[in-house]
């Protein structure tokens, strides 16, 4: 029941978002055809190209063509590249998605242990140290951090490539190429997550059922493992869900630093070239990603928390 309700509101959000995106982007100044043909183009050549691109159709009919296409996976053809948008996006997703997941993985791997340590050593030196470090981690802009990573590891030490993406034919090289960007992205995420982990754990350790468990004879560590951690996952999950949007935003910028052919770079490039259909589809996809992740996180609550099942 709950799932169906959330699903309905998800679909509604996406529909409204698609209208919004389409409207905003279609009123952008700049004509894709004129851009393609440049300074010396003659007006009739531009008009001919507009007709070829299907830009002379009405706004409403173009919306339905586009939105209908979204449903069937046919996003139309890129104005500039002249290839199906789905293909363009399909290629880029295989960079952006692994990058986001890699960063998410890194940040959880880092954040969970240090968050737990800080919570269990509350008020001790380790806690202060970790909290100080995470404050710093949050404050460092990831693109700045990325710049220094490139200088140190790619230019000076030459451990990894400075950027670019070799493709997944060579998985090791691909992962290598994503490592620095993922680290840059993961730093602030991990810091935030560690702080949330700590405070969520501290909160749950104050709960009555923890006291009950202690009265059963469970040790402090046993309580954390057996009771507190899983309960603390609820706020942590929320934050992971919320952070996804930041992760995407960060990825858009980081892709530029490391010239990764991901969705973010596609978006910037398409905006500059007024490849509107690519812009619309990419923005829609990113928005969809945020909405779907939020939905999945909601669903994940139900797994963690039996009160939300059914």
């Amino acid at each position: 029941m709950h799932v169906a309700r959330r699903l309905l509101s998800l679909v509604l959000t996406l529909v409204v978002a698609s209208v919004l995106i389409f409207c905003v982007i279609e009123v952008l100044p700049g004509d894709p055809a004129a851009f393609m043909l440049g300074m010396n183009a003659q007006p009739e050549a531009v008009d001919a190209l507009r007709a070829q691109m299907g830009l002379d159709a009405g706004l409403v009919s173009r919306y339905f063509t586009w939105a209908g296409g979204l449903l069937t996976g046919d996003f139309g053809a890129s104005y500039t590249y002249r290839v199906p948008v789905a293909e363009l996006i399909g290629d880029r997703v295989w960079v952006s998605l692994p990058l986001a997941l890699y960063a998410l993985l890194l940040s959880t791997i880092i954040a969970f242990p240090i968050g737990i340590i800080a919570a269990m050593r509350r008020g001790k030196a380790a806690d202060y140290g970790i909290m100080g470090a995470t404050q710093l981690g949050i404050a460092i802009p990831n693109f700045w951090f990325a710049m220094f990573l490139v200088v140190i590891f790619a230019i000076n030490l030459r451990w990894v490539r400075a950027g670019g993406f070799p493709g997944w034919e060579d998985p090791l090289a691909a992962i290598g190429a994503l490592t620095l960007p993922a680290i840059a992205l993961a730093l602030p995420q991990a810091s935030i997550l560690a702080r949330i982990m700590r405070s969520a754990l501290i909160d749950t350790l104050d709960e009555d059922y923890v006291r009950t468990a202690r009265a059963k004879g469970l040790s402090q560590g046993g309580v954390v493992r057996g009771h507190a951690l899983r309960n603390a996952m609820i706020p942590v999950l929320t934050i992971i869900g919320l952070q996804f949007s930041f992760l995407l935003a960060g990825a858009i910028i980081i892709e530029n630093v490391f010239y990764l052919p991901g969705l973010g770079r596609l978006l910037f490039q398409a905006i500059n070239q007024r490849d509107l259909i690519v812009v619309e589809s990419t923005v829609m996809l990113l928005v969809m990603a945020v909405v779907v992740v939020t939905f999945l996180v909601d669903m994940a609550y139900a797994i963690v928390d039996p009160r939300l099942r059914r």
Partner: protein
Amino acid sequence: QNTSITLGMQLEPPNLDPTGAAAGAIDEVVYANIFEGLTRFGSDGAVLPALAREWEVSEDGLVYTFTLVEGATFHDGTAFDAQDVKFSLDRARAEDSTNAQKALFASIADVEVLSPTQVAITLSAPNGALPFNLAWGDAVIVAEESAADNATNPVGTGPFRFADWVQGDRVEMVRNDDYWGEAVALESATFKFISDPTAAFAAMMAGDLDAFPTFPAPENLIQFEADPRYNVIVGSTEGETILAMNNGLEPLNNPLVREAVSRAIDRQSIIDGAMFGYGTPIGTHFAPHNPAYVDLTELSAFDPERSRELLAEAGYPDGFTTTLKLPPPAYARRGGEIIAAQLREVGITVEIQNVEWADWLETVFRGRDYGFTIVSHTEPMDIGIYARDGYYFDYAKPEFVALIDELEATSDEGARTDLMQQAQQMIAEEHVNAYLFQLAKTGVADARLRGLWENSPTQANDLTGVSWAE
């Protein structure tokens, strides 16, 4: 022995059909490598025969007869013949053509196939520039069978055939073993697109790239120069970089004001500050390496004192305020900041607006909604734009138009030089725009690479002569 090369480019071509879009990046990938025209540019800008072995001009200058090479085939195996030439040229000048340089073909009245290896082009008026026009990337010869798909799967007659395009990352091409001409040394070539200058630097430094023919960050060249692994190649381009002024807008319609602007600008500090020393100062809209060039920089020598006087004379003792719209290239963005500061010194306040190309084309170029803008005119020999009616800087003075008309109709070299110099003089004296510098071509390459173009008479990375040293 290394037989492949990886080149860096800042901009990715939107598609790979040079006859359907303006982007220079298309030519940088395909020109002379995949596609060929009847004629072509050499590295020094000379017009050389290509698919046309030779040509003859009729007495009245109206009919050009081209003799084609034999044995050439397109990459898809179809043979190249005169029919393809007719098809390509007719397509480019057709009513519904989407050729970005349609004007190049404006003088053509008819294309006639005389034999499979002979084509006659009839002009509506004499035009000495026809071989030059046909050397452009927009005039390459395509096959009827494959023309429609050239955007994503270019099929030409060149020494390389297209292999793969990973959008957003690279284009790959391999040697065409059936090439009609002299075989090339390289077996394969990859063009990698790296828009971010820092990333470009890092990629070059890390050895991911063999060459970056037009390196986007001149500031980093010192470091390459200091490194024996790299060769820094500095040459010239056809790009006259100007501070364009809207001649139709108050107060820039006043020649005194325009002179004041020109004189307020210190070219050398712009070249140093924005281009880190790369670039040749110019005083008019003409490339300094052209034999017909006259050095007119003195007409607008840096003199803020005089500039202020001129402003006062023109009735603007306190200066004025206008916009400065800057397209994305570094010369514009960085140069704009410096120019804004220099203009402020004489009392002119400019409001900087960074715009994307698409926006620039629409608002500045087409809409003429601007005060100043900085742009590099990279087409070769393009002083004729000053004669265009309604062009974005809105000059087109009748005397100048007459001059250009005469130039078009003249084929005698001496007379042409004279006319071109008159034209240079006229726009420089009128201070139509503030002429800044000729854009340098600053490239970086592996020290063992041979045969890369030094100059850039057109935007191209001609790989036919490129090889690795032993």
